[in-house]
């Protein structure tokens, strides 16, 4: 046998991809690909079902890890070197500005895509049984994304960074009982300084990304274990699909023939397990609706990856990541605004630190986590869940309005201003 061919075979260990067996083995025998099913439902590949938002979020995370590691090579988490390193990245390091732009814009994109992904999952009712807990993991991943954003924009040690830590850790200090301790542990001191920068750096490059990676793995794993992607809502309207049933095996005394004889195929999980075996009946039509992941799903995921990377690169070519002056503890910029995704929170905080900074956000997160357990309505059809959809839409609208007010309608001293002063300048 041709030794080259043999070497190749020792790597891939599968039949040729021209065969169905090869297409399946490509996935089963590959540690990276086996998170996919061998076959996927055609309907689940449709863009209008998921908009590929989960994939895009994951691809943005990959861009963030890659560019983040590159930026670490030219970054020292000390004051004032941190800021000097930003300037070096801007003016000295080859591709420095471009990498920093990519890192920043992917981070913004990730906040948007995680949020949109959450909206998609809500509106399609995909958090319902058996996917309740995966929704909870998703909410935690959303919080981790915000945590990574927060710890990330501190690292340049510019004015934004300094006052964001000051305000952010002070919000933490309003937490009941252990508020002051939380602030001291975050800052590693009583004032924002070197130890705070180092601690946020460790959180940003080690602790939070590790948690994010682990939970992402669990999130993906559970998508598979919970039966893959949910059925598109429009499929639920069709009578036939609604009758699909999973049946338990009959008692040991009864014969397997008890399963209704029809055109449908019955699959059993043939394993040595105690308790009842699991049988699932899938209609023939269902099976014809599936395609092999290779090449159909992989091709679409590849397109999503390319579009994501290309978009981030294009944005990074034309828009620079912001960098303010060197951190100056003596002078608070006026107005001192957080990045846009925290301006809703800042707007709340401007009314009351305890209520807006601690109580309302905590309740909002708890409510998000509790959604699959509060919503006992089993139906996923929009027509059957009008109130759930109204309530969630209200939540989304309130978030957007708060962010818009904080971004466009707040000026120096957090006073209300008409939005055009940001373009024309104050009078």
């Amino acid at each position, binding site marked *: 046998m041709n030794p080259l061919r043999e070497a190749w075979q020792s790597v891939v260990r599968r039949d040729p991809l021209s065969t169905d067996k090869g297409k399946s083995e490509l996935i089963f025998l590959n540690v990276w690909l086996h998170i996919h099913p061998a076959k996927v439902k055609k309907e689940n590949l449709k863009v209008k079902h998921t908009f590929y938002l989960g994939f895009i979020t994951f691809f943005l995370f990959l861009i963030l890890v890659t560019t983040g590691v590159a930026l670490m090579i030219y970054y020292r988490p000390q004051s004032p070197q941190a800021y000097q390193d930003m300037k070096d990245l801007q003016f000295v390091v080859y591709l420095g500005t471009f990498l920093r732009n990519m890192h920043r814009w992917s981070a913004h994109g990730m906040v948007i895509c995680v949020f949109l992904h959450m909206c998609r999952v809500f509106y399609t009712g995909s958090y319902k049984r058996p996917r309740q807990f995966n929704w909870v993991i998703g909410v935690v991943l959303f919080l981790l994304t915000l945590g990574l954003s927060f710890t990330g924009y501190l690292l340049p040690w510019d004015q934004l960074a300094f*006052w964001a830590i*000051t*305000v952010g850790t*002070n*919000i933490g200090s309003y937490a009941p009982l252990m508020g002051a*301790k939380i602030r*001291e*542990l975050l800052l*590693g*001191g*009583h*004032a924002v*300084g*070197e*130890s705070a920068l180092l601690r946020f750096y460790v959180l940003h490059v080690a602790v939070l990304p590790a948690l994010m990676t682990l939970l992402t793995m669990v999130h993906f794993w559970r998508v598979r274990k919970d039966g893959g992607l949910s059925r598109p809502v429009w499929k639920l309207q069709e009578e036939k699909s609604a009758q699909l049933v999973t049946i338990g095996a009959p008692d040991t005394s009864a014969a397997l023939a008890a399963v209704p004889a029809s055109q449908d195929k019955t699959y059993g999980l043939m394993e040595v397990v105690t308790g009842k075996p699991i049988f699932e009946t899938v209609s023939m039509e269902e099976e014809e609706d599936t395609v092999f992941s290779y090449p159909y799903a992989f091709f679409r995921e590849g397109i999503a990856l390319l579009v994501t990377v290309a978009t981030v690169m294009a944005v990074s070519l034309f828009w620079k990541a912001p960098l303010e002056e060197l951190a100056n*503890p*003596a*002078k*608070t*910029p*006026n*107005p*001192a605004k957080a990045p846009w995704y925290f301006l809703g929170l*800042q707007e709340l*905080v*401007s*009314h*009351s*630190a*305890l209520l*807006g*900074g601690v109580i309302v956000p905590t309740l909002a997160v708890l409510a998000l986590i509790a959604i699959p357990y509060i919503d006992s309505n089993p139906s996923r059809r929009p027509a059957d869940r009008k109130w759930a959809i109204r309530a969630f839409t209200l939540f989304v609208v309130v978030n957007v309005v708060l962010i818009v007010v904080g971004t466009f309608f707040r000026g*120096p*001293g*957090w*006073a209300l201003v008409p939005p055009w002063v940001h373009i024309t300048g104050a009078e």
Partner: protein
Amino acid sequence: MKRRSFVSWGTAGLVAVCSAIGVSLGAVVRFLTPSVFYEPPQTFKIGNPADFSYGPPTFLAEEKIFVFRDPEKGFAVASAVCTHLGCTVGYFQSDERFHCPCHGSVFNADGTVQHGPAPRPLEWFEVTLARDGQLMVDKDRAVPANYRLMVAS
């Protein structure tokens, strides 16, 4: 295994596991709390009384304090740190008030909250006369807003 010994061993095991977790958590929190703070001292000298003028307060940026000097009432030192979320307030002579740039809190000249989200008045710190005749501020000692240091000139 007898029920009695199961219960006693089980309780002992549970106590052991819980205390191990408790001690470890305590150690983690203690580890994260620095034993030494390399921070500027809370007690410091700010100069001779004659260095400060009457009229609007003097802002010391590094110390984040305002030094008031009044011909009749003497010296007083106010914190420039907003009690809301820690931004540095500015003193505006036009309305004789402190304004916070972050969330719009406004404080009167005596430190009380005029309006805005700030929950407490600005802090006032003890100011004394050191042996060498310089003014000495102790940020660890809060004093009432009417505290004054009279210096005979």
